[in-house]
Protein backbone atom coordinates (compact mmCIF):
# COMPACT_ATOMS: atom_id res chain seq x y z
CA UNK A 1 0.00 0.00 0.00
CA UNK A 2 1.13 3.49 -0.80
CA UNK A 3 2.00 5.60 2.17
CA UNK A 4 -1.08 7.41 3.48
CA UNK A 5 -1.05 10.97 2.29
CA UNK A 6 -2.43 13.90 4.23
CA UNK A 7 -5.77 15.42 3.37
CA UNK A 8 -5.87 18.58 1.35
CA UNK A 9 -5.91 21.87 3.22
CA UNK A 10 -9.60 22.29 4.08
CA UNK A 11 -9.85 25.84 2.80
CA UNK A 12 -8.27 24.86 -0.48
CA UNK A 13 -10.59 21.85 -0.72
CA UNK A 14 -13.49 24.23 0.00
CA UNK A 15 -12.49 26.52 -2.85
CA UNK A 16 -12.18 23.49 -5.14
CA UNK A 17 -15.62 22.24 -4.11
CA UNK A 18 -17.02 25.75 -4.56
CA UNK A 19 -15.62 25.91 -8.09
CA UNK A 20 -17.20 22.55 -8.92
CA UNK A 21 -20.51 23.86 -7.59
CA UNK A 22 -20.13 27.08 -9.57
CA UNK A 23 -19.34 25.10 -12.73
CA UNK A 24 -22.48 23.10 -12.14
CA UNK A 25 -24.57 26.26 -11.92
CA UNK A 26 -22.87 27.84 -14.92
CA UNK A 27 -23.18 24.79 -17.13
CA UNK A 28 -26.51 23.30 -16.12
CA UNK A 29 -28.29 25.90 -13.99
CA UNK A 30 -28.56 23.60 -11.00
CA UNK A 31 -26.45 22.81 -7.99
CA UNK A 32 -25.13 19.55 -6.60
CA UNK A 33 -27.15 16.84 -4.95
CA UNK A 34 -27.00 13.37 -3.54
CA UNK A 35 -30.18 12.26 -1.82
CA UNK A 36 -32.18 12.80 -5.01
CA UNK A 37 -30.16 10.07 -6.68
CA UNK A 38 -30.86 7.69 -3.81
CA UNK A 39 -34.54 8.41 -4.25
CA UNK A 40 -34.26 7.59 -7.96
CA UNK A 41 -32.70 4.26 -7.03
CA UNK A 42 -35.56 3.56 -4.63
CA UNK A 43 -38.21 4.60 -7.14
CA UNK A 44 -36.79 2.45 -9.91
CA UNK A 45 -36.41 -0.47 -7.53
CA UNK A 46 -39.99 -0.22 -6.35
CA UNK A 47 -41.12 0.18 -9.94
CA UNK A 48 -39.42 -3.08 -10.92
CA UNK A 49 -40.99 -5.02 -8.07
CA UNK A 50 -44.47 -3.50 -8.01
CA UNK A 51 -45.27 -1.19 -10.94
CA UNK A 52 -48.90 -0.68 -9.93
CA UNK A 53 -47.81 0.35 -6.44
CA UNK A 54 -45.73 3.14 -7.96
CA UNK A 55 -48.54 4.62 -10.01
CA UNK A 56 -50.90 4.47 -7.03
CA UNK A 57 -48.54 6.18 -4.63
CA UNK A 58 -48.69 9.95 -4.33
CA UNK A 59 -44.95 10.00 -3.74
CA UNK A 60 -43.40 7.54 -6.21
CA UNK A 61 -45.66 8.49 -9.09
CA UNK A 62 -44.17 11.99 -9.13
CA UNK A 63 -40.80 10.64 -10.19
CA UNK A 64 -41.59 8.18 -12.96
CA UNK A 65 -42.24 9.08 -16.55
CA UNK A 66 -43.14 7.11 -19.64
CA UNK A 67 -40.01 7.93 -21.62
CA UNK A 68 -37.06 7.54 -19.33
CA UNK A 69 -36.04 5.32 -16.48
CA UNK A 70 -35.72 7.17 -13.17
CA UNK A 71 -32.11 6.01 -13.18
CA UNK A 72 -31.28 7.99 -16.29
CA UNK A 73 -31.43 11.33 -14.55
CA UNK A 74 -28.98 14.10 -13.90
CA UNK A 75 -28.50 13.39 -10.20
CA UNK A 76 -27.95 9.66 -10.64
CA UNK A 77 -25.22 10.29 -13.18
CA UNK A 78 -23.72 12.95 -10.93
CA UNK A 79 -23.64 10.63 -7.92
CA UNK A 80 -22.10 7.93 -10.09
CA UNK A 81 -19.41 10.52 -10.80
CA UNK A 82 -19.01 11.11 -7.05
CA UNK A 83 -18.38 7.40 -6.59
CA UNK A 84 -15.69 7.33 -9.27
CA UNK A 85 -14.22 10.70 -8.26
CA UNK A 86 -13.98 9.60 -4.64
CA UNK A 87 -12.34 6.36 -5.69
CA UNK A 88 -9.75 8.17 -7.85
CA UNK A 89 -8.94 10.55 -5.02
CA UNK A 90 -8.67 7.70 -2.54
CA UNK A 91 -6.37 5.79 -4.90
CA UNK A 92 -4.11 8.79 -5.44
CA UNK A 93 -3.81 9.42 -1.73
CA UNK A 94 -3.54 5.76 -0.78
CA UNK A 95 -6.66 5.61 1.29
CA UNK A 96 -8.34 2.63 -0.36
CA UNK A 97 -9.22 -0.39 1.75
CA UNK A 98 -12.20 -2.07 3.35
CA UNK A 99 -12.67 -0.94 6.90
CA UNK A 100 -15.22 0.00 9.51
CA UNK A 101 -14.29 3.32 10.98
CA UNK A 102 -15.25 3.64 14.62
CA UNK A 103 -14.18 4.85 18.01
CA UNK A 104 -12.09 2.25 19.83
CA UNK A 105 -14.68 2.36 22.61
CA UNK A 106 -17.39 0.69 20.55
CA UNK A 107 -17.70 -2.51 18.58
CA UNK A 108 -18.01 -2.80 14.81
CA UNK A 109 -21.49 -4.12 15.28
CA UNK A 110 -22.60 -1.08 17.25
CA UNK A 111 -21.02 1.27 14.71
CA UNK A 112 -22.83 -0.44 11.83
CA UNK A 113 -26.20 -0.44 13.62
CA UNK A 114 -25.83 3.25 14.32
CA UNK A 115 -24.75 3.90 10.71
CA UNK A 116 -27.91 2.18 9.48
CA UNK A 117 -30.15 4.13 11.87
CA UNK A 118 -28.42 7.38 10.96
CA UNK A 119 -28.77 6.59 7.28
CA UNK A 120 -32.46 5.86 7.68
CA UNK A 121 -32.99 9.16 9.52
CA UNK A 122 -31.03 11.05 6.91
CA UNK A 123 -32.87 9.36 4.06
CA UNK A 124 -36.22 10.13 5.60
CA UNK A 125 -35.30 13.71 6.51
CA UNK A 126 -33.88 14.46 3.09
CA UNK A 127 -37.19 13.53 1.48
CA UNK A 128 -39.22 15.62 3.91
CA UNK A 129 -36.79 18.53 3.67
CA UNK A 130 -36.49 18.33 -0.13
CA UNK A 131 -32.77 17.78 -0.23
CA UNK A 132 -29.75 16.94 1.85
CA UNK A 133 -26.61 18.75 2.93
CA UNK A 134 -25.44 19.11 -0.68
CA UNK A 135 -28.71 19.71 -2.52
CA UNK A 136 -30.54 21.86 -0.01
CA UNK A 137 -27.96 23.35 2.33
CA UNK A 138 -24.83 23.84 0.18
CA UNK A 139 -26.38 24.56 -3.21
CA UNK A 140 -29.22 26.45 -1.55
CA UNK A 141 -26.83 28.72 0.31
CA UNK A 142 -24.83 29.42 -2.82
CA UNK A 143 -27.92 30.88 -4.51
CA UNK A 144 -28.81 32.68 -1.25
CA UNK A 145 -32.11 30.84 -0.95
CA UNK A 146 -33.95 31.08 2.35
CA UNK A 147 -34.60 27.33 2.24
CA UNK A 148 -30.85 26.69 2.02
CA UNK A 149 -30.00 28.75 5.09
CA UNK A 150 -32.89 27.31 7.09
CA UNK A 151 -32.02 23.70 6.23
CA UNK A 152 -28.34 24.29 6.95
CA UNK A 153 -29.08 25.73 10.39
CA UNK A 154 -31.57 22.95 11.18
CA UNK A 155 -29.08 20.19 10.25
CA UNK A 156 -26.03 21.58 12.03
CA UNK A 157 -28.01 22.96 14.97
CA UNK A 158 -29.61 19.59 15.67
CA UNK A 159 -26.36 17.70 15.25
CA UNK A 160 -24.66 20.04 17.74
CA UNK A 161 -27.56 19.78 20.17
CA UNK A 162 -27.51 15.98 20.11
CA UNK A 163 -23.71 15.59 20.00
CA UNK A 164 -23.41 15.14 23.75
CA UNK A 165 -25.70 12.09 23.79
CA UNK A 166 -23.75 10.22 21.14
CA UNK A 167 -20.24 11.19 22.25
CA UNK A 168 -19.30 7.61 23.07
CA UNK A 169 -19.66 6.67 19.41
CA UNK A 170 -17.10 9.17 18.31
CA UNK A 171 -14.66 10.28 21.03
Amino acid at each position, binding site marked *: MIKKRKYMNPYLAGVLLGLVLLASFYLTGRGLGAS*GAMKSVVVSGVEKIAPSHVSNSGFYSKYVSEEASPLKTWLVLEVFGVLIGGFISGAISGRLGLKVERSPKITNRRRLIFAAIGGALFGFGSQLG*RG*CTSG*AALSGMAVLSVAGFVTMMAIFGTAFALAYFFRKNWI
Partner: protein
Amino acid sequence: MKSRVLLTIVIVSLSAIAAILPQKKNSSVQLSADEVLQGINLGTYKISSDQLTEVIINQDPSYMLIDLRSASEFEDYHFPGAINIPFDSLFTENWIMYIDQDLRNNIFYSNGGSLAGQALVLTRQRGFKNNFVLEGGLNEYFDKVVNAEEPPGIADAQEHKIYQRRKAAQQYFKGGEALPENDTEIMIKPIPVRKKKMVQGGCS
Protein backbone atom coordinates in the same frame (compact mmCIF):
# COMPACT_ATOMS: atom_id res chain seq x y z
CA MET B 1 -0.19 30.43 8.18
CA LYS B 2 0.50 32.98 5.48
CA SER B 3 -1.62 31.40 2.77
CA ARG B 4 -4.60 31.45 5.11
CA VAL B 5 -4.28 35.15 5.73
CA LEU B 6 -3.95 35.65 1.99
CA LEU B 7 -7.07 33.60 1.25
CA THR B 8 -9.01 35.53 3.89
CA ILE B 9 -7.94 38.84 2.41
CA VAL B 10 -8.82 37.75 -1.13
CA ILE B 11 -12.28 36.46 -0.20
CA VAL B 12 -13.15 39.37 2.06
CA SER B 13 -12.10 41.94 -0.52
CA LEU B 14 -13.93 40.08 -3.31
CA SER B 15 -17.09 40.08 -1.24
CA ALA B 16 -16.59 43.74 -0.41
CA ILE B 17 -16.44 44.44 -4.15
CA ALA B 18 -19.56 42.31 -4.63
CA ALA B 19 -21.29 44.36 -1.95
CA ILE B 20 -20.37 47.63 -3.61
CA LEU B 21 -21.27 46.65 -7.17
CA PRO B 22 -24.77 47.61 -8.20
CA GLN B 23 -27.08 44.66 -8.48
CA LYS B 24 -28.20 43.66 -11.92
CA LYS B 25 -31.16 41.54 -12.78
CA ASN B 26 -30.49 39.06 -15.53
CA SER B 27 -33.65 37.10 -15.75
CA SER B 28 -35.69 35.98 -18.70
CA VAL B 29 -37.92 33.42 -17.16
CA GLN B 30 -41.57 32.71 -17.55
CA LEU B 31 -43.17 32.33 -14.17
CA SER B 32 -45.63 29.55 -13.52
CA ALA B 33 -49.18 30.46 -12.58
CA ASP B 34 -48.48 29.21 -9.05
CA GLU B 35 -45.55 31.53 -8.65
CA VAL B 36 -47.58 34.51 -9.83
CA LEU B 37 -50.43 33.60 -7.50
CA GLN B 38 -47.97 33.44 -4.65
CA GLY B 39 -46.71 36.86 -5.60
CA ILE B 40 -50.27 38.15 -5.45
CA ASN B 41 -50.87 36.47 -2.11
CA LEU B 42 -47.72 38.00 -0.72
CA GLY B 43 -48.85 41.41 -2.00
CA THR B 44 -45.79 41.81 -4.22
CA TYR B 45 -47.84 42.89 -7.23
CA LYS B 46 -50.57 44.76 -5.41
CA ILE B 47 -51.12 48.50 -5.26
CA SER B 48 -53.29 49.60 -2.35
CA SER B 49 -55.99 52.23 -2.59
CA ASP B 50 -53.85 54.74 -0.75
CA GLN B 51 -50.83 54.09 -2.95
CA LEU B 52 -53.05 54.76 -5.95
CA THR B 53 -54.26 57.96 -4.31
CA GLU B 54 -50.67 59.19 -4.20
CA VAL B 55 -50.23 58.33 -7.87
CA ILE B 56 -53.36 60.26 -8.79
CA ILE B 57 -52.61 63.31 -6.65
CA ASN B 58 -49.04 63.55 -7.88
CA GLN B 59 -50.08 62.70 -11.43
CA ASP B 60 -47.08 60.41 -11.32
CA PRO B 61 -45.97 59.89 -14.93
CA SER B 62 -44.26 56.61 -14.15
CA TYR B 63 -47.63 54.93 -13.69
CA MET B 64 -50.25 54.07 -16.24
CA LEU B 65 -53.75 53.15 -15.14
CA ILE B 66 -55.39 50.48 -17.28
CA ASP B 67 -59.15 50.00 -17.05
CA LEU B 68 -60.03 46.45 -18.00
CA ARG B 69 -63.81 46.86 -18.03
CA SER B 70 -65.97 47.22 -21.10
CA ALA B 71 -65.94 50.41 -23.15
CA SER B 72 -69.39 51.44 -21.91
CA GLU B 73 -68.44 51.06 -18.28
CA PHE B 74 -65.30 53.05 -19.02
CA GLU B 75 -67.41 55.81 -20.58
CA ASP B 76 -69.57 55.89 -17.48
CA TYR B 77 -66.72 56.37 -15.12
CA HIS B 78 -62.95 55.84 -14.99
CA PHE B 79 -59.96 57.00 -13.02
CA PRO B 80 -58.38 60.22 -14.22
CA GLY B 81 -55.73 59.48 -16.79
CA ALA B 82 -56.71 55.85 -17.22
CA ILE B 83 -56.82 54.17 -20.60
CA ASN B 84 -59.35 51.52 -21.52
CA ILE B 85 -58.15 48.10 -22.62
CA PRO B 86 -61.10 45.71 -22.32
CA PHE B 87 -59.93 42.44 -20.79
CA ASP B 88 -60.56 40.35 -23.90
CA SER B 89 -58.40 42.57 -26.08
CA LEU B 90 -55.49 42.73 -23.65
CA PHE B 91 -53.24 40.46 -25.66
CA THR B 92 -54.20 41.73 -29.11
CA GLU B 93 -51.68 43.41 -31.33
CA ASN B 94 -53.02 46.87 -30.61
CA TRP B 95 -52.44 46.72 -26.92
CA ILE B 96 -49.64 44.26 -26.23
CA MET B 97 -47.06 47.01 -26.46
CA TYR B 98 -48.69 48.66 -23.47
CA ILE B 99 -48.41 45.65 -21.22
CA ASP B 100 -45.04 44.29 -22.36
CA GLN B 101 -42.72 47.23 -21.86
CA ASP B 102 -39.96 48.52 -19.63
CA LEU B 103 -40.91 52.18 -19.35
CA ARG B 104 -43.75 52.50 -16.90
CA ASN B 105 -45.64 50.63 -14.24
CA ASN B 106 -49.13 49.59 -15.23
CA ILE B 107 -51.89 49.36 -12.67
CA PHE B 108 -54.74 47.11 -13.78
CA TYR B 109 -58.16 47.65 -12.30
CA SER B 110 -61.68 46.39 -12.71
CA ASN B 111 -64.81 46.67 -10.58
CA GLY B 112 -63.82 44.00 -8.09
CA GLY B 113 -60.42 42.41 -7.87
CA SER B 114 -60.79 39.24 -9.89
CA LEU B 115 -60.69 40.40 -13.51
CA ALA B 116 -57.62 42.53 -12.90
CA GLY B 117 -56.09 39.67 -10.91
CA GLN B 118 -56.49 37.34 -13.88
CA ALA B 119 -54.91 39.88 -16.19
CA LEU B 120 -52.00 40.16 -13.80
CA VAL B 121 -51.46 36.39 -13.67
CA LEU B 122 -51.58 36.17 -17.46
CA THR B 123 -49.12 38.99 -18.02
CA ARG B 124 -46.69 38.03 -15.27
CA GLN B 125 -46.74 34.45 -16.45
CA ARG B 126 -45.59 35.57 -19.86
CA GLY B 127 -42.69 37.36 -18.22
CA PHE B 128 -44.08 40.86 -18.78
CA LYS B 129 -42.73 43.00 -16.01
CA ASN B 130 -44.03 46.24 -14.54
CA ASN B 131 -47.66 45.19 -14.25
CA PHE B 132 -49.52 45.58 -10.98
CA VAL B 133 -53.07 45.31 -9.78
CA LEU B 134 -55.26 47.64 -7.74
CA GLU B 135 -56.17 45.78 -4.59
CA GLY B 136 -59.95 45.40 -4.29
CA GLY B 137 -60.60 47.26 -7.53
CA LEU B 138 -62.83 50.28 -8.04
CA ASN B 139 -65.33 49.11 -5.44
CA GLU B 140 -62.85 49.09 -2.61
CA TYR B 141 -61.33 52.34 -3.81
CA PHE B 142 -64.67 54.11 -3.56
CA ASP B 143 -65.41 52.64 -0.16
CA LYS B 144 -62.05 53.55 1.23
CA VAL B 145 -61.05 56.78 -0.45
CA VAL B 146 -63.85 58.55 -2.26
CA ASN B 147 -66.34 57.96 0.53
CA ALA B 148 -63.74 58.15 3.24
CA GLU B 149 -65.02 59.10 6.66
CA GLU B 150 -63.12 61.35 8.97
CA PRO B 151 -61.40 59.33 11.66
CA PRO B 152 -62.43 60.10 15.27
CA GLY B 153 -60.42 62.72 17.11
CA ILE B 154 -58.68 60.14 19.23
CA ALA B 155 -57.20 58.36 16.19
CA ASP B 156 -53.46 58.77 15.78
CA ALA B 157 -51.80 61.30 13.55
CA GLN B 158 -51.04 58.73 10.88
CA GLU B 159 -54.71 58.01 10.32
CA HIS B 160 -55.50 61.67 10.05
CA LYS B 161 -52.74 62.10 7.55
CA ILE B 162 -54.12 59.26 5.41
CA TYR B 163 -57.54 60.86 5.64
CA GLN B 164 -56.11 64.18 4.45
CA ARG B 165 -54.59 62.51 1.42
CA ARG B 166 -57.85 60.75 0.67
CA LYS B 167 -59.69 64.04 0.99
CA ALA B 168 -57.23 65.61 -1.42
CA ALA B 169 -57.87 62.85 -3.92
CA GLN B 170 -61.60 63.34 -3.75
CA GLN B 171 -61.40 66.51 -5.79
CA TYR B 172 -60.72 64.27 -8.74
CA PHE B 173 -63.91 62.34 -8.17
CA LYS B 174 -66.39 64.80 -6.71
CA GLY B 175 -67.51 68.24 -7.80
CA GLY B 176 -67.53 68.40 -11.54
CA GLU B 177 -65.10 67.59 -14.25
CA ALA B 178 -61.78 67.77 -12.54
CA LEU B 179 -60.50 64.90 -14.62
CA PRO B 180 -57.31 65.86 -16.40
CA GLU B 181 -57.24 63.85 -19.59
CA ASN B 182 -54.19 61.91 -20.54
CA ASP B 183 -53.00 63.79 -23.58
CA THR B 184 -49.37 62.85 -23.61
CA GLU B 185 -49.39 59.26 -24.67
CA ILE B 186 -46.00 57.77 -25.13
CA MET B 187 -45.55 55.35 -27.99
CA ILE B 188 -44.07 52.19 -26.66
CA LYS B 189 -42.22 49.65 -28.70
CA PRO B 190 -43.06 46.01 -28.10
CA ILE B 191 -40.43 43.76 -26.60
CA PRO B 192 -40.05 40.22 -27.91
CA VAL B 193 -41.90 37.63 -25.88
CA ARG B 194 -39.65 35.45 -23.76
CA LYS B 195 -40.01 31.74 -23.62
CA LYS B 196 -37.49 30.29 -21.24
CA LYS B 197 -38.09 27.96 -18.38
CA MET B 198 -36.42 27.50 -15.08
CA VAL B 199 -34.40 24.30 -14.72
CA GLN B 200 -35.27 21.50 -12.37
CA GLY B 201 -32.97 21.20 -9.45
CA GLY B 202 -32.36 20.37 -5.86
CA CYS B 203 -32.86 16.90 -4.60
CA SER B 204 -36.62 16.87 -4.92
